């Protein structure tokens, strides 16, 4: 285990532990950037999908993992992002304008919703966001001239400074665009977390009352977290719209909200890396099921394709398993393995024991 001497405050709050950690991130981004030359069209499309999910996952991670507010309706903000972007592009605006506009629309809407929502906590907030999702879904159907209603809408091809980023024609360019967005957002997110604003998110998450006592404006902080989270999700929504190319309101179903929750919980709540781990899992599992299905059919003669809902059921089982056995998610497990290796043979099971809390009601009757 390497010991690091911190000789200045800047060194203490540095994003990376040491130069080696920084080099690893640079290497990762380099490999990701080189991916179009390494894999085929099919896997590149899957990688793009994973990146978009990771972006949306980061949006929800900021809310659930870092500011302690649960949203069951984040698909609504994906939808707002996608429809804003597509509708503005159809109105003739270029992508460089509509893409930030999508984030702005989703973020503003989120912040607007947050003003009453932040007065609620826990369960109430979760249910309110669920209700919000249903309302947004109905609005999309009603606002047919803009959204195409039930019939759906076509996302136009992206063009920036004369260069095409068409999802079907130039998939590698579209992939690079997504990668650039994800890298930029991740970098901003990581930096946000070491700023006073980010620190206040964590304070509000851990104890609202203590945060208030420390002089943090809890309402403002929670609304800001909500808005930022929704803006990030809106960006992901805009990209998702272009990725799917032709979509209607059904793309943003309640299951997408649940899948997003799955991404952040299985990935590891409270870690940016968790959003990526979760996104990889959620895009890889359907692939694995398809492959298994083929194997089962060819070698065993069993056709499990006839069971609808099997994927959802598998996701649900994975989620239950993680909640019960590894609530810190994939990234939490990775940290444990790393600590075990670094401390070998000194690591003990009790180092990671979870603290249990006893419930006390806030109701008076």
């Amino acid at each position: 285990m390497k010991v690091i001497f911190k000789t200045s405050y800047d060194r203490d709050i540095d994003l990376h532990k040491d130069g080696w950690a920084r080099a690893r991130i640079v290497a990762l981004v380099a490999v990701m950037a080189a991916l179009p030359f390494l894999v085929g069209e099919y896997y590149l499309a899957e990688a793009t999908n994973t990146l978009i999910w990771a972006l949306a996952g980061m949006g929800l991670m900021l809310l659930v993992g870092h500011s302690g507010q649960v949203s069951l309706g984040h698909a609504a903000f994906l939808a707002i992002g996608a429809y804003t972007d597509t509708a503005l592009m159809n109105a003739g605006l270029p992508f460089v304008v509509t893409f930030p506009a999508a984030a702005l629309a989703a973020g503003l809407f989120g912040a607007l919703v947050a003003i009453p929502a932040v007065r609620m906590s826990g369960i109430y907030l979760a249910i309110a966001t669920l209700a919000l999702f249903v309302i947004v879904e109905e609005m999309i159907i009603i606002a047919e001239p803009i959204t195409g209603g039930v019939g759906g809408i076509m996302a136009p091809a992206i063009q920036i400074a004369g260069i095409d980023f068409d999802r079907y024609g130039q998939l590698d360019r579209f992939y690079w665009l997504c990668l650039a967005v994800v890298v930029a957002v991740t970098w901003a997110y990581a930096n946000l977390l070491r700023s006073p604003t980010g620190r206040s998110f964590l304070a509000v998450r851990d104890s609202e009352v203590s945060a208030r006592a420390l002089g943090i404006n809890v309402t403002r902080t929670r609304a800001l977290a909500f808005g930022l989270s929704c803006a990030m999700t809106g960006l992901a929504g805009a990209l998702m719209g272009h990725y799917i190319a032709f979509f209607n309101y059904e793309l943003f179903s309640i299951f997408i909200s649940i899948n997003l929750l799955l991404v952040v919980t299985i990935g590891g709540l409270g870690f940016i890396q968790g959003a990526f781990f979760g996104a990889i899992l959620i895009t890889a599992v359907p692939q694995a099921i398809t492959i298994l299905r083929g194997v089962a059919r060819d070698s065993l003669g069993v056709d499990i394709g006839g069971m609808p809902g099997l994927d959802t059921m598998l996701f649900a089982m994975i989620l239950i398993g993680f909640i019960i056995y590894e609530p810190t998610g994939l990234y939490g497990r990775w940290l444990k393995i790393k600590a075990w290796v670094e401390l070998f043979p000194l690591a003990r099971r009790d180092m990671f024991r979870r603290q249990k809390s006893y419930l006390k009601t806030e109701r008076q009757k």
Partner: protein
Amino acid sequence: MDLIQLLVGGVATGCVYGLVALGFVLIYKATEGVNFAQGDMMMLGAFIALGLVNSDHLGLAFIPGVALAAVLMGGVGYGIDRFVVRQIFGQPQFALVILTIALGFVLRFIAGSIWGYSPLVLETPFAGRNLSMGGVNISLADIVTILVTALLTVALWGFFAYTRIGLAAQAASQNQMAAYIVGVPVRRINSIIWALSGMVATVAGVLYASKGAIDPNIGLLGIKAFAAAVIGGFGSLPGALLGGILIGVVEPLAARYLPGGFSQMSPYIIMLAVLVTRPNGLFAQMHAKKV
């Protein structure tokens, strides 16, 4: 005349929402957790009743069949708590939310693989019969729904106010540690409450099925029941019922007198309005927040 018919139908539908909401409130009152699988438990209860009662399945008589279904669902509820929910005892509320959402999907898959995904109709003795009073046609199913709901609410209220288990459940919810110290078997109480909530879900499911066909996705009705529970204030039994009835009545009225789409949105608009003006519901039980 039309309006009265609309109102009675609305109250009856509202009673079903209210019953599902009662299931949430039961678990919330006892364990401070919210069971997002309540709608799916209702669906499973309805399907078990269908499997026992319908003539092309087991063909039991209606009342014993439903009673048996309720007992079975009680077992399912107890089992869910004993083997799944108890594992995360002592973890934050958020974990239970995600866990029960996932459980809902599992229940839906189970029901779908046994009974299929096409709509089925439960055979009830009061299906299709109507009572006419002065030109108003009211279906018998609606009246049965309203009566059963009223009875069940009174019974549950009595359970929490007077029985030992009910009082123990309240104690466990108010301060788990203190309840342990005075000898309340908190874990077993939680399981019993889950069993009870499974039974209530079955009754709700059967009443829902008496008004139309059922398929594995009717559990999504749970979202409306949430709105009902929130409107009433999550810890209040009569509040949940009133919230359900309010939603049940407003929905058909909105469908009738407002432009399309509003009827689907109306429960949630009411709920958000209540949350904004009275963040703890109409029958608020929360007075101060502690550290």
